[in-house]
């Protein structure tokens, strides 16, 4: 019984005296007129569900149903309590979620299967000519005229309603034909953010995994992946749940706008202020979050790295050097790489930081005894007597015999020196450091201007000699990099704190960022002071505002450094809190088995999507970005004369990154070829490559052999949302109308390692299809559109970083009209595919080229991160090139396998982040709960032939949702680490979260070795708590959090240490307009003023990506269509008033939108919200006469070479962990007021 006073009021008898004192009319019951509203409130049932992929909120909702119709939704309020002194999670939800039911019956609902008229006519014709559907498909796509005729119709209307049977046959035939003719890696599935509907995601990826298709990543492609995280932590992204904000006593919101983007969580921020937590907002505009801030740092867009560096300067100066704050010092020593030694090598009469000193270096000169296996991965510290030693916990202890029981952070009583200044008799040396913020000299030649504005400067560090090498510590290098001078060190240091020219000082940062010196000093000091007083409870909520830049990894590293210097990581209430496109699939182990069909075969083809689209949409032909323009002046020769596209090719060939399609030949035929040649597959492939008989597909994307042929989109809207360079997608991938405005590269800036075909390909993909419940830019361009069930019409599960609960989707109503769940759509496709495969495919061998993987011994492939020239590197599969793995696929059994759990989990275990789980008892449980297949290849295996059974497979086979497995995993971890972990899971040994339980209420997960935080005893989840409290290493080279990265390419780009790199200067790199430049253009015949502005695409209040931006409620609460926010000043420059139409253009395309003019915007920057679609109220552009583009019509893929590093320690590939980001925040656009007469 509730104690709520309101709840008790129901007992009140409606009575009392009617009263009327001339003005007031009191009425007592009964009052017949009230029946109207009581009727309105009535309903038949309330069903729990949540919202799927567009959102990472994972909120549980009540869906109201009356007469079989969904009426409305409200948030659930039944979250389990998170503690007496905490605000609860209830209610979770936002206006977007509250408006979702509009889609169920909206006029944009996809009710039936559709195929575009030209294609269905061709198909029906071909079916009349051919008995076999695969032959029919071939007759269309291999006839250039026919193929062109339907491809050019994409995006031009003409969708024809068809039956499911007819469409299923066409789709299955396209898949079978493509696998047979071009190879399974020419099919691809694009679906995103699995955490938010894991069964629906996995239904399709399970199918593609089984046929050998390519599964496209999203986190890196969205640029939501903070590449600094794998670099610094060796982890994809691990962050606190939002309730942990409430444990913070100093909170910065940096490039993050929680009220808008984390609406259900924002209350923890507003509420923690009442505990006396100071809240700081770092934002270029006065954002919704700034409203709550005690202090607003008005930073110039993209300059956050300078701010981070200067705050670090203040903290190192005042809290490390002026006084050695014991808490900070001890933390840095134990949990960061600060105390490790770096070898300095000679360069231009000075020294430059080179590599971590390792046991191998010591052994070489007899300075250390036997360091066991992999000594090159055992990094070295030094003690106060100058004795080097090899502490436990580096990567060399992780996968080796010698490391068993030693992979931990226990210094075993040794006290390493943080700085060699504390070493008696130390030397000093000037080291060469690079800066990237200098102005290009006005006298520079055009060629020089192109090469970047980097400069070398020299600062001193204390040194000593170890093993014949000059070394210093990471910490000493950090102090140099941050410009914190100390007595007796040579080199050029800030002449004072007001030295604007010296990298690191607040005065320097103030000139760059626009934030005044006092504020930088104050906030940095407060952040550190609070961390010291609270033992690490200073937190930075960081978001897309800083994470979506080309150089976001450098920005983030300066921010993460602040939390590391102040001992905040691994502390409740402290550390980084990155919230951009979270995708914490809490039951990750079970999910991976299900979604990637690891229960039947391993590995699966997982692709870095940025590279996939970059090549498939031919954006590489327009890019030509010379690596030298990004490089450090100290870079070696390896970056000379190359474009970033060349670095992608190199990373692919080296096996650093996955690359699909891999070769210019069907991988099924490669296996056959090896067999014919009587060779092992790896040997055969190397042989063929060496002979030049086989080529890498990434070197020739315009070769029809290398085209992606079938792309299936579900749970996503690439063309309306994430498609950086959207117009290039239309032009080259789809072959439809487009507004690409720039020219292709001239001969002088083309990639040297790729084939340049004079004519770029158009319309590469044969079948571009989408399952969705609403019409989007993607469905508008799809050949086939399938009607998908909404989130209130299916069973599924959802988890998130933001809270610890597993939430369920449930069927409030059955899918209406002819809609089907994603689960059923792929189940049917698997069946039809298997049947057609009998004639066309049978059993084939498939050669999968798999990249060198993180959290496996592959990470030991490249000692010291030294990159030898590719030409002189031998091809050794699994070391210097991808692993070449042969998988036998019985294509006729895909359906049977899809419906049942395969045998591999018991046979070889399930490995997540290096921990292997053995689900022996679990499989028995699933057998008895789900039933077993009675015949065929899956005979005796547990069934997952319904969505609910699939959900139970995921939940049962993961530690976070199955306490027995969690405990088992921790016990295994104990062996490797040599420390105690079991206590983290013992309280939950009997906990098993089933799908049935999640239907009753949100169910909290348990502490598991799959993640780094602890919920044990009711704690709030905070990342790296297990590392800090149980001395478990991070998954990095040193086993500690890294300030220093020593891979050659990091050195070449000048990013060994946290540094400041400004936003890309697109004027310099591509000849774009200069920001602020005012020009004159033509709107029709009329001369109009134009101005060039920075173009940012932050997240919108009225949509979650493209979802909801077409929702009538959301449109009625906003501006009703595409809106470009701009400052009063910029509006004045082009003479535009609020709500007038403007056009924005650059080399990539054109956007038409209405101006929103506001003084809360800074001059020189405009916002067009992320995923501004083109489906609603987008007229034709004056400039092109074509429909205005989406927000990404003005962007393009820009590839950063350091994101492509692989095969080395934490810089090794994992799906959605590491990869080039689809960043989009460095763009510039020209805006102008257009004619106010618009045409549609």
């Amino acid at each position, binding site marked *: 019984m509730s104690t709520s006073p309101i709840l008790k009021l129901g007992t009140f008898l409606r009575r009392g005296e009617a009263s009327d004192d001339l003005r007031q009319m009191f009425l007592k019951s009964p009052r017949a007129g009230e029946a109207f509203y009581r009727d309105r409130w009535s309903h038949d049932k309330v069903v729990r569900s949540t919202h799927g992929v567009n959102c990472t909120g994972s909120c549980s909702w009540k869906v109201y149903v009356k007469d079989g119709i969904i009426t409305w939704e409200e948030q659930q309020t039944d979250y389990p309590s998170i503690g007496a002194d905490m605000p609860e999670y209830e209610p979770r939800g936002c206006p977007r979620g509250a408006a979702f039911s509009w889609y169920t019956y909206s006029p944009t609902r996809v009710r039936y299967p559709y195929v575009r008229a030209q294609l269905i006519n061709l198909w029906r014709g071909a079916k009349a000519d051919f008995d076999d559907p695969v032959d029919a498909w071939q007759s269309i796509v291999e006839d250039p005229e026919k193929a062109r005729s339907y491809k050019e119709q994409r995006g031009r209307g003409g969708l024809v309603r068809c039956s499911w049977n007819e469409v299923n046959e066409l789709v299955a035939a396209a898949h079978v034909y493509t696998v047979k003719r071009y190879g399974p890696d020419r099919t691809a599935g694009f679906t995103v953010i699995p955490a938010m509907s894991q069964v629906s995601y996995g239904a399709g990826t399970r199918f593609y995994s089984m046929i050998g298709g390519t599964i496209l990543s999203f986190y890196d492609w969205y640029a939501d992946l903070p590449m600094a995280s794998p670099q610094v932590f060796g982890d994809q992204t691990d962050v606190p749940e939002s309730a942990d904000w409430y444990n913070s006593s100093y909170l910065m919101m940096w490039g993050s706008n929680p009220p808008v983007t984390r609406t259900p969580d924002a209350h923890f921020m507003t*509420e923690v202020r009442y505990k006396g937590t100071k809240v700081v907002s770092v934002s270029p505009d006065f954002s919704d979050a700034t409203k709550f801030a005690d202090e607003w740092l008005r930073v110039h867009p993209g300059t956050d790295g300078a701010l981070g560096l200067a705050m670090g300067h203040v903290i190192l100066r005042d809290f490390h050097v002026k006084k050695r704050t014991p808490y900070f010092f001890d933390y840095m020593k134990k949990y960061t790489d600060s105390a490790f030694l770096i070898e300095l090598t000679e360069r231009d009469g000075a020294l430059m930081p080179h590599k971590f000193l390792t046991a191998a270096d010591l052994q070489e000169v007899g300075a250390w005894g036997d360091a066991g296996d992999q000594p090159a991965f055992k990094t070295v510290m030094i003690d106060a007597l100058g004795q080097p030693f090899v502490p436990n916990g580096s990567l060399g202890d992780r996968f080796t015999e010698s490391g068993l029981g030693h992979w931990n952070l226990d210094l075993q009583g040794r006290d390493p020196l943080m700085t060699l200044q504390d070493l008696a008799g130390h030397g000093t040396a000037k080291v060469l450091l690079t800066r990237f913020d200098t102005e290009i000299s006005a006298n520079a030649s055009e060629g020089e201007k192109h090469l970047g504005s980097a400069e070398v400067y020299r600062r001193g560090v204390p040194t000593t000699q170890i093993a014949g090498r000059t070394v210093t510590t990471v910490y000493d290098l950090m102090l140099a990099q941050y410009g914190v001078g100390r007595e007796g060190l040579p080199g050029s240091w800030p002449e004072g704190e007001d030295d604007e020219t010296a990298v690191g000082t607040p005065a320097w940062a103030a000139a760059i960022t626009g934030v005044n010196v006092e504020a930088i000093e104050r906030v940095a*000091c407060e952040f550190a002071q609070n961390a010291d007083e609270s033992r690490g409870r200073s937190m930075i909520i960081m978001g897309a505002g800083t994470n979506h830049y080309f150089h976001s990894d450098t920005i983030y590293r300066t921010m993460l450094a602040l939390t590391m210097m102040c001992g905040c990581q691994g502390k409740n209430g402290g550390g980084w809190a990155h919230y951009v496109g979270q995708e914490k699939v809490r039951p990750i182990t079970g999910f991976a088995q299900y979604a990637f069909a690891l229960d039947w075969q391993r590995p699966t083809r997982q692709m870095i999507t940025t590279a996939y689209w970059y090549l498939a949409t031919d954006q590489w032909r327009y890019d030509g970005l010379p690596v030298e323009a990004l490089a450090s002046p100290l870079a070696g020769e390896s970056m000379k004369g190359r474009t970033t596209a060349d670095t992608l090719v190199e990373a692919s060939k080296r096996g650093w990154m996955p690359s699909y399609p891999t070769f210019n030949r069907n991988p099924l035929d490669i296996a056959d070829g090896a067999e014919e040649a009587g060779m092992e597959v790896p040997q055969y492939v190397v042989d063929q490559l060496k002979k030049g008989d086989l080529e890498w597909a990434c070197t020739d994307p315009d070769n029809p052999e290398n085209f992606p042929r079938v792309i299936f989109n579900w749970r996503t809207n690439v063309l309306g949302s994430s498609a950086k360079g959207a117009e290039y997608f239309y032009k080259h991938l789809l072959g439809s109308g487009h507004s690409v405005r720039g020219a292709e590269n001239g001969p002088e800036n083309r990639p040297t390692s790729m084939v340049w075909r004079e004519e770029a390909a158009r319309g590469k993909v044969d079948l571009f299809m989408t399952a969705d419940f609403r019409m989007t830019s993607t469905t508008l361009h799809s050949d086939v559109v399938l009607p998908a069930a909404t989130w209130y019409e299916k069973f599924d599960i959802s988890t998130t970083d933001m809270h610890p609960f597993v939430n369920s989707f449930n069927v409030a109503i059955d899918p209406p009209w002819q809609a089907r769940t994603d689960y059923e759509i792929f189940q049917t496709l698997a069946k039809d595919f298997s049947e057609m495969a009998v004639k066309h495919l049978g059993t084939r061998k498939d050669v999968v080229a798999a990249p060198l993987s993180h959290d496996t011994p592959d990470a030991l492939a490249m000692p010291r991160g030294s990159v030898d020239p590719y030409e002189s590197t031998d091809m050794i599969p699994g070391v210097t090139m991808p692993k070449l793995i042969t998988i036998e696929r019985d294509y006729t059994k895909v359906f049977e396998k899809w419906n049942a759990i395969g045998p591999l989990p018991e046979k070889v275990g399930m490995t997540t982040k290096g921990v292997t789980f053995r689900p022996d008892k679990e499989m028995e449980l699933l057998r008895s709960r789900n039933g077993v297949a009675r015949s065929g290849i899956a005979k005796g295996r547990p069934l997952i032939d319904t969505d609910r059974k699939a959900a139970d497979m995921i939940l049962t086979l993961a530690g976070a949702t199955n306490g027995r497995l969690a405990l088992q995993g921790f016990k295994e971890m104990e062996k490797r680490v040599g420390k105690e972990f079991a206590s983290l899971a013992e309280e939950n040994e009997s906990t098993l979260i089933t799908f049935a339980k999640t239907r009753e209420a949100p169910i909290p997960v348990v502490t598991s070795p799959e993640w780094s935080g602890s919920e044990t005893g009711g704690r709030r989840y905070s990342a790296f708590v297990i590392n800090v409290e149980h001395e478990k290493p991070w998954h990095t080279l040193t086993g500690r959090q890294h300030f220093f990265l020593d891979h050659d390419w990091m050195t070449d780009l000048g990013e060994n240490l946290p540094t400041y790199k400004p936003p890309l200067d697109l004027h310099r790199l591509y000849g774009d307009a200069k920001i602020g430049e005012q020009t004159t253009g033509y709107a029709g015949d009329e001369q109009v003023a134009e101005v060039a502005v920075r173009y940012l695409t932050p997240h919108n209040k009225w949509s979650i990506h493209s979802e909801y931006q077409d929702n009538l409620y959301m449109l009625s609460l906003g501006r009703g269509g595409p809106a470009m926010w701009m400052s009063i000043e910029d509006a004045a420059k082009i003479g535009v008033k609020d709500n007038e139409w403007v056009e924005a253009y650059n080399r990539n395309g054109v956007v038409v939108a209405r101006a929103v003019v506001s003084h809360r915007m800074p001059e020189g920057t405009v916002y067009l919200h992320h995923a501004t679609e083109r489906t609603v*109220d987008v007229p034709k552009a004056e400039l092109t006469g074509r429909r205005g583009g989406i927000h990404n019509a003005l962007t393009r893929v820009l590839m950063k070479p350091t994101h492509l590093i692989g095969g080395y320690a934490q810089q090794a590939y994992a799906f959605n962990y590491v990869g080039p980001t689809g960043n989009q925040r460095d763009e510039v656009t020209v805006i102008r007021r257009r004619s106010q007469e618009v045409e549609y």
Partner: protein
Amino acid sequence: MRIMAQMSMVMNLDKCIGCHTCSVTCKQVWTNREGMEYVWFNNVETRPGLGYPKTYEDQEKWKGGWELKRNGKLKLKAGGRAKKLLNIFYNPDMPGIRDYYEPWTYDYDMLLNAPANSAHVPVARPKSLLTGEDMQISWSANWDDDLGGSHEIAAKDPILAKMNEEVQLEYEKTFMFYLPRICEHCLNPSCVASCPSGAMYKRVEDGIVLVDQDKCRGWRMCVSGCPYKKVYFNHKSGKAEKCTMCFPRIEVGLPTVCSETCVGRLRYLGIVLYDADRVTEAASVENEHDLLHAQRAAFLDPFDPQIVAEAERQGMPHDWILAAQKSPVWQLISRYEVALPLHPEYRTLPMVWYVPPLTPIVDEVSKTTSDPEDFRILFTALSKMRTPLEYLAELFTAGDTKPVEKSLRRLAAMRSYMRDINLGRDGDEEIAAAVGMTGEDMEDMYRLMAIADYDERY
């Protein structure tokens, strides 16, 4: 003494994130039907801004609410019965649809049904929901959200016009906050008094103000009579409709939709006991600055044994008295005095009250204090508020800044006091005493404002 119970609400604007979830859930449940397209029983406004409908606060224009005659009596600002009858077919104070917004939809069908070989990618154009014609959208239910169009729109905010202080709408001086609004369910409702048909009433048991859907004749005098413009005309049914305080939910023990779905957790719902005999007097005090005090004085302390006894004698059920004692609304209004009424000068004695937002400007503060890192100074220096005190005072206290400052000082003091506890130190009674409270008060208020769970908020 005539003891009555009023279902009331407090919204803590210091927590409002401006998400509009309340608006959407309310709309979905109550007003997503024909004739009500433009109607939002619950809306959220960015301030400074024009509000919904535009400039509704300008009573010189709209003539809503009451005014005090020279003889000390209240009269409707729009005039008495005689004037009403004269204007019954033409009401000059009625907002037009464009003062709200012209509701629209889009021809979404085109996305699926665009013919083959279309020249361009299909698009859904806006269509008026009133005329069915193509339209260009120029105003919405929340057009000036987040200061959109500020110089052209926010500058015309009637509150800014009333202020003595010059407010510059400049980038570095930006301020804004959100103001969610529902019907005020006033103790002295001018809408009820305006109705020529006697179709409007206050429910005797809980004071909820309703339009009798059977008796309403569609004269719309309530629409113009309400100074908050929270009675709307359903142009399909021809009747007035308004926020019902979700009485069908309240009656079965559920909070209002807007309260339950408020994800900022800023809404409090509860019973306030008041003396109905003092309503007229409270609404009629001469000085507008005294209205706040007069209204608070009309409220009755549910813990006072004499009040309890008298309420029981008058037939008030025991559980209602208990509910009044547990009411978080009473706590915020009368115990902590941090909540304030919206536009008391309309003299309707509104019953949805607000905790004003706290918005210090640290860089300004730091210029004037020696140690900007001292949290006590930081959090209590309110003279340099980002949001001018005078602006808040024009909203909540008829221009008197003192009660606003007191409320904000208490919030700031709570933060200072709790910081010590947060960091494991003892609370400093001096801080509490400086705002007329004790440390225990501070902790109680903190629990109510930060922690209070579902059962404690409603």
